[in-house]
């Protein structure tokens, strides 16, 4: 528990010391989100700006009016509004993939790394990270597929019982287990990514091996830390939505924007916190063997 706490706070301390990464990534997320939504904005403004009917979506929120809006021919097909967001969402993912090595280097360093060091780390590790990304996607895909099939089967069985809530709880349990499995996979790959960057490892399979071993060795501590941080994220998400609903008047566009964006900023920070915790563990892990190996090397020297 104390270990968990230390990793939890060590991660927080590392993330707090490098807030600029969170801010940059958030700004990138915001910019790409805005670009993605601009197509929808053009359509929406052209239909709504001069109409009194739009008020039904401003003061209060009438989903029937929203559906009517989305189905207007002049709004265009939904695809033309949603595809840009999808593309810019993918762009955010790829950008994160590209710049994450620099972040991990920054997190492991006891000083503020230079811009050169940051980008050099990004460039040097780009292809390695792409490979890890593909592997992560395959592992996540297979795991999700198997678990979904298993839980779908269970949910169907639950549906045949007379206990109405059982299918819901089966699904809930399924999602929880899937999230835990995904968290574990993410943890494994986070450690592998950290190893790739900090040991300049070109053979990503070795980093994956390292990540797997480190994860197994610290499974309770690390998984506990990740889950604890994720729970903080859940509290932020639920609390943010409740606050949004309770304190922001439905007609306050700016208020809604502020609350929603603050929520997104915090969620991003939560993920970086997990990353920082993994880096803190890695640094600790790498330090420990040095202490153990040194006497062996000395013994060899003596033998010679």
């Amino acid at each position, binding site marked *: 528990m104390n270990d968990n706490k230390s990793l939890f706070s060590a991660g927080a301390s590392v993330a707090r010391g490098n807030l600029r990464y969170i801010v940059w990534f958030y700004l990138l997320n915001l910019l790409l989100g805005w670009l993605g939504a601009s197509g929808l904005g053009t359509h929406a403004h052209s239909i709504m700006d001069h109409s009194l009917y*739009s008020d039904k979506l401003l003061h209060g929120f009438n989903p029937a009016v929203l559906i009517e809006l989305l189905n207007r021919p002049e709004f265009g097909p939904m695809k033309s509004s949603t595809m840009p967001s999808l593309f810019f969402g993918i762009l955010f993912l790829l950008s994160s993939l590209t710049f994450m090595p620099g972040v991990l280097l920054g997190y492991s360093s006891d000083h503020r790394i230079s811009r050169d060091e940051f980008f050099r780390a990004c460039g040097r590790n780009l292809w390695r990270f792409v490979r890890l990304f593909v592997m992560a996607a395959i592992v996540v895909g297979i795991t999700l597929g198997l678990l979904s099939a298993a839980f779908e089967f269970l949910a169907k069985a639950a549906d045949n019982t007379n206990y109405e809530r059982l299918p819901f709880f089966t699904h809930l349990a399924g999602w929880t287990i899937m999230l835990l499995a995904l968290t574990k996979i993410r943890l494994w790959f986070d450690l592998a990514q950290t190893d790739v960057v900090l040991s300049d490892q070109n053979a990503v399979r070795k980093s994956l091996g390292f990540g797997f071993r480190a994860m197994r060795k610290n499974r309770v501590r690390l998984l506990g830390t990740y889950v604890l941080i994720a729970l903080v994220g859940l509290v932020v998400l639920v609390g943010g939505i409740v606050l949004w609903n309770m304190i922001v008047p439905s007609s306050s566009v700016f208020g809604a924007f502020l609350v929603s964006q603050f929520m997104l900023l915090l969620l991003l920070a939560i993920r970086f916190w997990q990353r920082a915790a993994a880096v803190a563990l890695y640094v600790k892990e790498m330090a420990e063997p040095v202490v153990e190996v040194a006497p062996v090397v000395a013994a060899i020297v003596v033998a010679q």
Partner: protein
Amino acid sequence: MSFSCRRLGLFLLFSGSLPALAQTPAAVSIPTTTSAINSATPMSQRVVHYEIDAKYNAKNHTVDADETLTYHNLTGQPLDTFPFHLYLNAFQPTSTWLREGKREGTRNQDFEKWDPKSYGASEIKSFEVVGQGDLTSQVQFIHPDDDNKDDRTVVQVHLPKPIPVDGYVQFKIKFRDQFPKTLERTGWDRDSIVGGQWFPKVGLWIHGAWNCHQFHAYTEFFADFGVYDVKLTVPQNEVVGASGIQVSDVSNSDGTRTVAYHGDDIHDFAWTASPHYKIVDDTFNGSMGPVKIRVLLHPGHMFLAERHTRIVHQTMDHFDRWYGPYPYKTLTVVDTEPGSQAFGMEYPTFITGGASWFDPEGSLSEPEGVVEHEFGHQYWYGMVATNEFEDAWMDEGINQYTEAKIMDSIFGKSTSIFNNLWGMSVGEDDGDRLFMLPVADLDPMTRKGWKFADSDSYGGITYGKTAVVLLTLESIIGEDTMRQAMHTYFMRYRFTHPVPEDFLKTIEEVSGKDLRWYFSQAVYGAQVLDFRVLKVSNVPVDWYKEDLKEKKGETEYISNAWIHRKGDFVIPVDLEIKFDNGESLREHWDGQDRWVRYQYQKKAKIESVEIDPDHKIQFDRNNFDNSYVVKANPAPASKIVHYWEFISQFLAQVATWWLV
């Protein structure tokens, strides 16, 4: 499509080979009982008396039954041919119901793959006509609506001796039902069952012909009024509910019990059984007497008992005050198996609803909406027994309209579906309009049920369009007049089978207005109503002066507003023009031409133009262009964009969280 034996009768008459008329069996008549209604005399012209003794096998979901049907020939001519519905045969792969369903969609079932559990059947084991012998071999499947020889939902039997005018005939039928896993609101789910459309039911003679349609993908039913005496034998542990009043409940030595029901002046009989139902009893004191309400709830839904009884009371009270009395002594409300396709359905004095363990107070579609809707059918279907095959709008649509009126009255006009549920509010009229919009120009309301373009059009027009057409009609003739017209229609046509013109003429009569211009477009036509503000201009009178400096309140403008009728539906409409000095003007346009321009010369500019400012017209296809505000207000669109931006940013973060 109806079919007739009249021609056959005439042929036989003129060919000189008319067989001897059948003698009415001794002591046969239709009972004049009134034990199930709060009336000393029968309320309908009773044509049929069904006596059914049914044994339910809960394990196999089968029913073995003996049916005695007494039919009173009130058609005004001898009858020698009788058609019967066998609705459960619709649930077979080659039936018309399923073929249409594959083509156009059924209620909640896509039939991508045939599931043997969907199989249903009604098999006639023997068919005897009292005094005329065993006619089992004479029973033939017919398909009056299409050329599907594999459809087995209607049978016909030809009698050796015609039944004379005002004579009686008694059919003794043994049949076996196999219920499907619930389809079209009938069948089993887990260990519960709702038995609807489950017995051989004679067609209805109307307008000189038999009306006995096949079971189609989204049509409903049509039958004669009469008396029902039904005995249901079920396993001892089952809790049973059914149409009519319960008259006995006897335990049998074989571990079963037999529950008997009696119904007066009803035209169908449905039942349900489940070992899990919890019973909640209540009483409503209506203007014709007390009504015993029985709610059969699932154990996990007991927390919804009060919501069920409250909405039943509120609905019955509104119907009683607005449209007329509910004469039956009972109403059974069934909370169907969770997740089942049984959900909401109407049968005389017996309705099914649906609820979930997660039904927040702010979501009124269930149980409130569905219970209100199905109770409404006690009036528009149950008592005003229109032809659901051919005039579906007269039961579903009129009922949807009264649902909107009553739900709005109870829960508020803009909050009768979602009442500030997580910040969202939706009213019944919003829902109805939305239902109609995608299919507004596909079919007229008067299309026969199975001839709509597809299931979306059937639903959108029959339910959605009818409701908004009647809501708009109400704004034309006035709310009180409309209510009076509905009351008159109900009281005049209850326990009969009115046709569309009966309803429309009643409205014209009560309102004292010629409304043909409206009915021809809205009811019989598929014209689309769509107005828009085409453009607005404000030009200074002294526009040509080089030194012109516009000043609010001093500069004089020539302002114009153009209104365009885009759709083919012609209807008069009001307009409101607001100026930037606070002045507001009302105009009335007859809507006859395609467009109209209004011009004003004032020391003020037009600030906004709104078509139909009182929102009387409910079925304009595009409400966004019904107004024009000169100064743009980007806030509503910005709100939508911010919401979308939030969602897309969040999803991008989630994907990145797990993959990078």
